[in-house]
């Protein structure tokens, strides 16, 4: 069985900055793997038997090569970095389209696992869009995933309870962040990972035109963004006499509004 796990690197919370076009600034920020995506990987590694392969895939800047290698150390068999300047600024549709292209390029996966949503954008749209682009079903908010006679058996969390579903492959499942804790990398895994390469895929390899990906391929555009706590991240300088009280006053007024 071939399992694909889609991972997203998100800025470590508390360090988020946006540029003039309201895009998250990922270049300078410290990144971490999205927690729900880690749960998806752990679910995949738990399912995996000796003959199965787990491929991790992420879309993002070149500096994600080392973090991907760490996922190899934790037990993934193959790591794919989908990276191209043309992919920058992609919304959920453009992202899902690119990931689906990569999934097709890499071959037939029986199971695609993702986190149910990322802690930076919080849209929760991408898993379903990837599934739609690939023409396979998508089950969201999964708490557990198991294999039974070639079908995938999923416990899906609803507001009112849990639904148990059995779905034939291929299928895309998006995982909740709280049921699987990603295992630690082991010494043997780290040694193995040292000799493995992270495979790179760019727009040319995927046959994507500039119009179909990145900012140009996106359907949504952020036109405004507002913070409820102005000035919080740029604290008062030590000798700025009034900055502290002024900032606090502004903050309180904002909250009272």
């Amino acid at each position, binding site marked *: 069985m071939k399992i694909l796990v889609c991972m997203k690197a998100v800025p*470590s919370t508390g360090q988020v900055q946006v540029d003039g076009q309201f895009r998250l600034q990922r270049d300078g920020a*410290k990144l*971490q793997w999205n927690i729900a995506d880690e749960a998806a990987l752990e679910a995949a590694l738990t399912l995996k038997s000796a003959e199965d392969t787990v491929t991790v895939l992420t879309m993002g800047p070149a500096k994600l090569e080392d973090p991907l290698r760490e996922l190899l150390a*934790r037990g993934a068999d193959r790591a794919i970095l989908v990276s191209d300047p043309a992919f920058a600024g992609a919304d959920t549709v453009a992202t899902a389209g690119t990931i689906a292209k990569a999934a097709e390029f890499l071959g037939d996966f029986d199971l695609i696992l993702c986190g149910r949503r990322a802690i930076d954008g919080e849209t929760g749209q991408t898993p379903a869009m990837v599934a739609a682009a690939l023409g396979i079903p998508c089950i969201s908010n999964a708490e557990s995933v198991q294999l039974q006679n070639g079908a995938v058996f999923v416990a899906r969390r609803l507001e009112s309870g849990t639904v148990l579903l059995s779905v034939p492959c291929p299928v895309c499942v998006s995982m909740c962040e709280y049921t699987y*804790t990603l*295992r*630690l*990398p*082991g*010494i*043997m*895994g*780290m*040694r193995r990972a*040292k000799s493995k390469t992270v495979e790179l895929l760019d727009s040319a390899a995927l046959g994507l035109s500039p119009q179909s990906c990145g900012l140009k391929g996106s359907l949504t555009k952020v036109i405004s963004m507002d913070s409820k706590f102005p000035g919080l991240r740029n604290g008062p300088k030590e000798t700025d006499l009034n900055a502290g009280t002024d900032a606090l006053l502004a903050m309180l007024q904002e909250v009272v509004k």
Partner: protein
Amino acid sequence: MISQNALRHAEKCRFCFMCRHLCPIQLQTGKEVNTPRAKGLLLSMVNKGAAEFDKDMAQTMYECLICDACVNDCATGYQPPLYIREARTEAVVNDLAPQAVMQLIENVDATGNIYGVQKPSFAQEGSDVLVYIGEVAACKVPQMAEGLLKVLAKAGVSAKVLDNEPASGVMLADLMGYVDEVAQQAKACAAAINATGIKTVVVLDSYDAEIMKQRYAQWGAEINAEIITATAYVAKLIEDGKLAAKAACGTLGACHDDDRLARTFYEFAPIRAIAKAAGYQLTEMFNKERLAKSCGSAVALAYMPNIVTKVAAGRWDDLARTEATAMLTASPEAYLCLSQATPEGKQVVDLYSALAE
């Protein structure tokens, strides 16, 4: 290389000199590299491409007891052991760890413990509590394990001890950091404990208690029972009147607060209560409780006996400046290390055996 989080701690420590006076290895070797600052600085240099992580650097990262004296001192909360442990992982992965360390890891692979021997069994049946003996007591300080079991029997506690008691993982964690191999040991240990169904686990070695209480749950190795240090458990038996105090033995002693009781559990009163019940008159060393100087750990003693013996001698120096003739301990690790350097006219006392007699 090391994680972003560990690197953040290293970068904060690299220019800070505040805790060097507490490092027991620095005090004995006098080496600048044996300060938390230097270790942080070196890892920062590696990250910037200004230094190479070579065998010498790996060796340096093992010259640390992970006694947490530096962590305890930091007013801001930075933790040198965080990056030191990760650097050890790096060393093992890249075959740069000292030969003596690699030998211990091979011993764990072969026998489950660093000593490379079949772990002696203290198995017995019981229903009130499960006693976790640990490798150090089982292999090196068996009289302390026997002493504790006798004390419990005396108090009418029905204590079970596992046959083939699995390793807690704490020693492997000191040798190679918090890696999956350690988590696997933790899971096996938790499973064995849970299988007994007993709801109280009395842990003889505070190092084992630390990893069980602080790490197991986050690795998915929950223990479905209360974990309690043997010192706290026995002190409670004394308090509840289940163990009678012994007559004064006429010896003046000072209690050694081992690293984990001192700086993980902040547990100070129980060992003193046990010492009093064992008939000792008590005085205190100046550096006590949270500031108690480490006398070494069993795993460090196994891979750098010369340095740890000096560290133990440093603790005896503290005792020498008191009137006491006995160093009192309820930790198998401390007992083992202190025994390497017992000065003439002094004795290290295993409090469980003393109480059991």
